[in-house]
C-alpha cells in the first residue's frame, strides 16, 4: 500500500462522523501501521515520515503509538520469524532450553535478526497450544512438543529454508 493512497474516510468508516478531525486521523494509525508492515515487513522511517505529512500528525505522535506495541518493528526482519513460546505451560516444560539452544545455534539473541536477514528470533507469550508445550512457531506454522530430537529437526527446518 502506498501511504499516499491511504483513504482515511474509508478506513475509519461511519464512526468518522461523530469524532473530530484529529481523532479521526489517529483512529486509522494502527490499521495503517499493520498495512505498511504487511508490505515492507517493518515500519521504515521514510514511510512513517510520509504518513506523518499525509495525516498532518507530528512524527513524534506517530512514533509514540507505534513504539507502544510489540507487533511493530523499526528495522528489517528476517525472512523466517521464529517465535519461541514463553507462556506458563511452555515455561514449566522447558521453553528456556529451546530458546537457549536456538540462540546458540544461530548466534543471535532473542529479538535479533541474523545478518543475512534469514531469520529473526523472538519470544511470544503463549500461542494457545499449551497442550503441545513447549511450542515454537516458524512464521505461521506451529511446531509443538519440542524435545531434543525435535529441536534438531527444528534447527534443520529453519536452516534449510535459509538457502
Amino acid at each position: 500500500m502506498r501511504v499516499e493512497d491511504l483513504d482515511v474516510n474509508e478506513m475509519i468508516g461511519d464512526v468518522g462522523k461523530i469524532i473530530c478531525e484529529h481523532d479521526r486521523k489517529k483512529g486509522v494509525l494502527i490499521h495503517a501501521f499493520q498495512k505498511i508492515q504487511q508490505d515492507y515487513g517493518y515500519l521504515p522511517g521514510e514511510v512513517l515520515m510520509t504518513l506523518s505529512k499525509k495525516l498532518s500528525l507530528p512524527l513524534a505522535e506517530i512514533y509514540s503509538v507505534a513504539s507502544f506495541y510489540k507487533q511493530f518493528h523499526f528495522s528489517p526482519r528476517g525472512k523466517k520469524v521464529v517465535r519461541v513460546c514463553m507462556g506458563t505451560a511452555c515455561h514449566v516444560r522447558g521453553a528456556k532450553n529451546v530458546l537457549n539452544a536456538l540462540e546458540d545455534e544461530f548466534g543471535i539473541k532473542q529479538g535479533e535478526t541474523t545478518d543475512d536477514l534469514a531469520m529473526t528470533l523472538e519470544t511470544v507469550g503463549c500461542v494457545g497450544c499449551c497442550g503441545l508445550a513447549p511450542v515454537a512457531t516458524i512464521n505461521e506454522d506451529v511446531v509443538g512438543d519440542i524435545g531434543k530430537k525435535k529441536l534438531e529437526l527444528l534447527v534443520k527446518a529453519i536452516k534449510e529454508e535459509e538457502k
Partner: protein
Amino acid sequence: MKNDLLIKICMGTGGLAAGGSEVMDAFKKQLRVKGIKADISKHCSIHRVGCRGLCAKDVLVDIILNNVKTTYQFIKPYMVERIIEEHVINGNPVEEWAVTEDYHQFHNKQIKVVLSDCGNIDPEDIESYLNVGGYDALKQVISTMSPKDTIEIIKKSGLRGRGGAGFPTGVKWEICFKETSSQKYIICNADEGDPGAFMDRSVIEGNPHAVIEGMIIGAYSTGADKGYVYIRAEYPLAVERLKKALNQARQNKFLGKNILGKKFDFDIKIKLGAGAFVCGEETALIASIEGQRGMPRAKPPFPVYKGLWEKPTVINNVETLANVPYIIRNGAEWYSSFGTEKSKGTKVFALTGKIKNSGLIEVPMGIPLREIIYDIGGGIENNMAFKAVQTGGPSGGCIPADLLDIKVDYESLAQVGSIVGSGGMVVLDENDCMVNIAKFFLQFTQSESCGKCIPCRIGTKRLLEILERITCGKGREGDIELLEDLANDVKATSLCGLGQTAPNPILSTIRYFRDEYEAHITKKKCPAGVCKDLLSYVVIAEFCKGCGACKRVCPSSAISGEKKAVHKIDPDLCVKCGACFEACKFKAIGKG
C-alpha cells in the same frame, strides 16, 4: 457399501500442527480411490482433541458409520488406508488405534455449554451451525422479545463475565440499555493475553457463530449498532474463521441493515491487537481501538457510561458472549441449575502443565479441584507428586495440595488467595520451584506494564529485582517481609487491574510455600532443583561405575576420571547444564 458415513478430523491449531490437513488429504484420496462418498467435515481440535497431548503426537479422527461413532487417536496419513478398508468397507473398527479409557474419562465429568457444539460442527460453514439450532436464539429474541425481556433472562441466568472480574453480564447490559445516546457500541474482548490460556482462541476457532450470535443479541438488548471484535494477531486461524463467519452471517441477514426483516441494524468489525497484554484491560482496549497507545485510564467513568469515542460501550469476553445463545435457547433456569449459589453455569478452563490429559475442559462452577486434576486430568504426568495449581495466570495465585478439595468458583478461589480469572489452570509438580514461578509471572507483568502509573511501573521492577536476587543466591534476611510489604502497596495503589493483581503470584506463593523462599534465602538452596545458581552437581561415588558417559556429554570438560574409576566434577568448570545428570544410567549424579 455403506452410505451413511461422516468423518471428522481435528483441524484446530493443535490438530493442524500435528498434521491434520495431511490426514484429511489422505482420507479424501482413499475415499476417491475406493469410490466411497463421504462428507468430510472439518472438525475443530478443541472438543475432542482438546490439545490434551494427543494432538502433540497426532491427529484425532471420528468415524461415524450408520450413527455409530468410533474415535481414533494418533492418526497418521499411512494409517488411513487400513481404516477405510477394515472399518468403512468391512465394518470392523481397527481396535488398536481407537481411543482408550482415559479419553472417555476425560469427558465424563465435564458439562458442555459453550463447547457443546465445538468439535461437532464445521466452524467454516454456517449451515452446520444452523443445523444444531444456531441463530434460533437470535430469531426468537428479535421476533418475540423486547430488549428488557432479554436482559431479564440473562440476569436471571446468573451469567457473570468470564473475562476475569466476574461482573454480572445482565446488569452491565441493563446499564448500557438505560443510557441515552445516539450511538452505542459493543466490543468482544478476544485479546486473551494470559500466558498459558487458550479458551477464547479455541471457542472462536471451533464455533465462531456462537460468539457472533451472542454479540448480536447483546447489541439488540443494549441498543448498540456497531460492534468490534478485538482479537490477538497471534491467532491467525481464529481471525480467518471469524472473518469467514462474519461474511456468512451477513449473507444470511443476521448482520447488516434491517436484520431478519426487523428495524434493527448492526454490524461487526474486526480489530487486530498489536501485541500488548494490557490492551486486554477494557479502557486500554478502547484506547487502542481509537489508535492511541494502549494505556488504561482511571475508572469511573466506566465504559458502559463513557467508552469508545466517549459513547456508552459494553465490553464482554468471548466466552461470556458464546454462552448467551445457549441461555436464550434453553432458558435461564436451565443455565442456573449448574453451578453454585453465587457462581452459576459452567466455565471453560485450559488445563495444562504437568498433567496427563492436558486440554480444554468445561466444568460446572463449584466442581472440586481434585476432580479436575485427577478424574478429568488423569493425575500428574510421569507419576510425580502434585505440588500446586496456578490459576488466573499473572493476576492469580496458586493452590497447594492440602487445598485440593476446595470448590472451583469465584468466591472459593478468592478466599484462598487465587482467582478464577480467564481460566488458565497450570499444574505444577515437585520439580517446579515456586519462587521461580513467581519470578516468571513478575517478569511477564513487569515487561507488560504500560508505564503510566508509578506503583506498577517501578513497583513491579523492584519486586522482580528482589525475586531475582533470591533465586540467584543473594537473598537477604527480611526479603520476604519486604516483598510482602511492597506487594501490598503495589496492589493498593496501581491504576489498573494489571498492577492491582500483579503481586498476587508472589503473595500466594509466600503464603503457601514460605519454606521454599526461606530455603533460598538462608540455606541458599533450591529445594526443587530449578534455580541454577543454587545448584551443584556431584558424582555419588558408590553408584559410579566409571563408564564415562557423563564425561563425554559434558560441554565444558568439567568431568574427569579414568575408565572404571569414580569420576569427579570440577565445580569451577561446571556450567550446570544438567547433561551429565540426564546421561547417567546409574543415577550416580547428584543434584542439590
